[in-house]
């Protein structure tokens, strides 16, 4: 008898075996079905609802998936042999009731038990996103979610540049950009998406070149237009998160109103000279504290109080820092991770090197986002100048 066969005989004595029928019934009663085959095998099909964890990382990651050592584990491989080795290892780790599914996935499939072709990352994506896969808070499920997500950036300028770069790098599957402008040499002091050779090119095109070079696996959609009351809802409705990087006050109101109406999170930032601020307007996230832009500014200022139309100076890296903070918030929202900046406004002054946080209040009488408010319709305000990003 070969050593392998002797060992298998021992394992068969030690590990109880269940049929696919019994395994299905047990899993309906709370047992965890665990598919320990390799990634390429799982890609051909795996039981519906199974935990999928190859033997390579079995002992290291099983507790993230099944923290309860008293829960019954039903281990499955292709034919019922590797599952015995895996089951023994899990027993040693402290799981009290571990069983092997006899005949493995091939018998499961032949007996007509439910299976699915799971979505998994291919080998290239696994390598590209390996630093995310190492984090339990992101992991494969989170990375797939990002690849399925759509984020709209309004403005491919100072804030939009780093936001777009990092959303693309992180693997957000669809990135939309709204910008009507062309690249100007004075942009290059802070708008890192663009290059000297692309001066004069539409910004959405220049952005597409940069983002596709970084990550060819994502889709970049350019909307070379100005947002107005006729197109705002149509453009925004296709996206999960809206990142407001506009330098135009009238557009800011329009984005706010559409986000409130459509229930979309609006990651808002603005920079000026050596400082900037960021918050997330998202009334439906938190009914009590979630506010909108109009809770703070119900209407645009009259012309005599509007800020000057002259271009304002800004330290080149300021929109960089705030666009990055916007990327952080957008990804957190997509992954439903941590606490978004809802009801909080973060302010950074580069000269003092300090971050401060202010609470922002919901206006209980806001015409747009208060309880029971009837949407008053979109407004095309005349150009109101604001500080540029």
């Amino acid at each position, binding site marked *: 008898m070969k050593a392998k066969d002797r060992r298998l005989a021992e394992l068969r004595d030690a590990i109880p075996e269940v049929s696919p029928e019994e395994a299905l019934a047990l899993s309906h009663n709370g047992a965890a079905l665990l598919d320990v085959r390799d990634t390429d095998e799982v890609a051909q099909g795996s039981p519906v609802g199974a935990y999928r964890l190859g033997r390579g990382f079995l002992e290291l990651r099983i507790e993230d998936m099944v923290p309860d050592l008293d829960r019954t584990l039903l281990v499955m491989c292709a034919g019922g042999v590797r599952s015995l080795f895996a089951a023994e290892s899990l027993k040693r780790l402290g799981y009290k009731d571990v069983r092997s599914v006899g005949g493995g996935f091939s018998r499961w499939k032949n007996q007509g038990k439910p299976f699915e072709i799971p979505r998994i990352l291919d080998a290239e994506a696994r390598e590209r996103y390996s630093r995310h896969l190492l984090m339990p808070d992101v992991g494969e499920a989170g990375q797939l979610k990002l690849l399925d997500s759509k984020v709209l950036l309004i403005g491919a300028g100072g804030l939009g540049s780093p936001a777009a770069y990092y959303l693309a790098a992180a693997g957000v599957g669809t990135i939309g950009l709204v910008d009507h402008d062309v690249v100007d040499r004075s942009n290059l002091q802070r708008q890192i998406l663009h290059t000297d050779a692309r001066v004069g090119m539409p910004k959405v095109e220049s952005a597409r070149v940069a983002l596709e070079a*970084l990550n060819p696996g994502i889709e970049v959609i350019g909307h070379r237009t100005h947002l107005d009351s006729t197109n705002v809802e149509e453009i925004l409705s296709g996206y999960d998160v809206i990142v407001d990087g506009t330098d135009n006050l009238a557009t800011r109101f329009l984005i706010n109103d559409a986000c409130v109406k459509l229930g979309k999170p609006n990651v808002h930032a603005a920079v000026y000279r050596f400082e900037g601020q960021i918050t997330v307007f998202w009334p439906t996230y938190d009914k009590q504290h979630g506010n909108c832009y109009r809770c703070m500014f119900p209407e645009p200022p009259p012309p005599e109080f509007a800020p000057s139309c002259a271009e304002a100076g800004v330290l080149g890296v300021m929109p*960089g820092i705030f666009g990055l903070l916007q990327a952080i918030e957008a990804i957190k929202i997509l992954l439903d991770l941590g606490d978004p900046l809802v009801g909080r406004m973060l302010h950074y002054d580069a000269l003092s090197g300090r971050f401060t946080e202010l609470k922002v209040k919901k206006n209980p009488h806001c015409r747009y986002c208060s309880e029971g408010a009837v949407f008053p319709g979109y407004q095309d305000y005349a150009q109101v100048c604001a500080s540029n990003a």
Partner: protein
Amino acid sequence: MDDKQLERYSRHILLPEIDLAGQEKLLDSQVLLIGLGGLGSPAALYLASSGIGRIIVNDHDSVDLGNLQRQVIHTTLDLSRPKTESARDHLHAINPGLDIDVIGHRLTATELAHYASQVDVVIDASDNFITRYAINHACVATRTPLVWGAATRFDGQATTFRNDYEEAPCLNCLYPNQHAQDAMGSCGDNGVFAPVTGIIGGIMAAETLKLLLGVGITLHGRLLRIDATALEWRQSLFTRDPLCESCSPPRQAPPSRADAK
């Protein structure tokens, strides 16, 4: 400055704290940036777009696919090229007028001291402790200001070591050698949330610009930390350790180029 430069830097020149003189100062500045990964990518891009006249970039690695999840200075077309070359091309593409010097090997202690003494600021965007302490040592010895950062998972931190000051703390005062590894894991082992490296690199660029322009208050004696899950920033203060093995007794060497300005 010619017309093209006046146009390129117009948003800086509009700031009274920078103005023409400040932009000229940036164009006349030199920095050494060590590490072209997660922290170095955004730092380099913003230092180049801001018009730092000479940037010496150092990294001995080449670009691999796992880098591109956060290292936005490189592209898929750069895979397996030396990071220094990929970075130089990108920096020249956004600002062709700059001197970008590349060093593609691991610097020896002697070389570190040599380059540190040439530049106004050293930026440590490296990812390991051996390099971090070697850089610290060279900057203490040459009294060169050192901008420093680190990131892992959802956490990041940054500070500035004012080696040009008499009584400034150094990296070894903040994290004595033996405790350092516990304080910060590396992103290779633990993973890292892509934009956290970006934001720390951005803060490092802001610190560098402040040092070069002589405006604002740097992070001297202050460690800034971010927890990205809550998006909360905390600041802790630290001072020089009089028994520090790296920077005690207080510095004797003449200050480097930065102090002379």
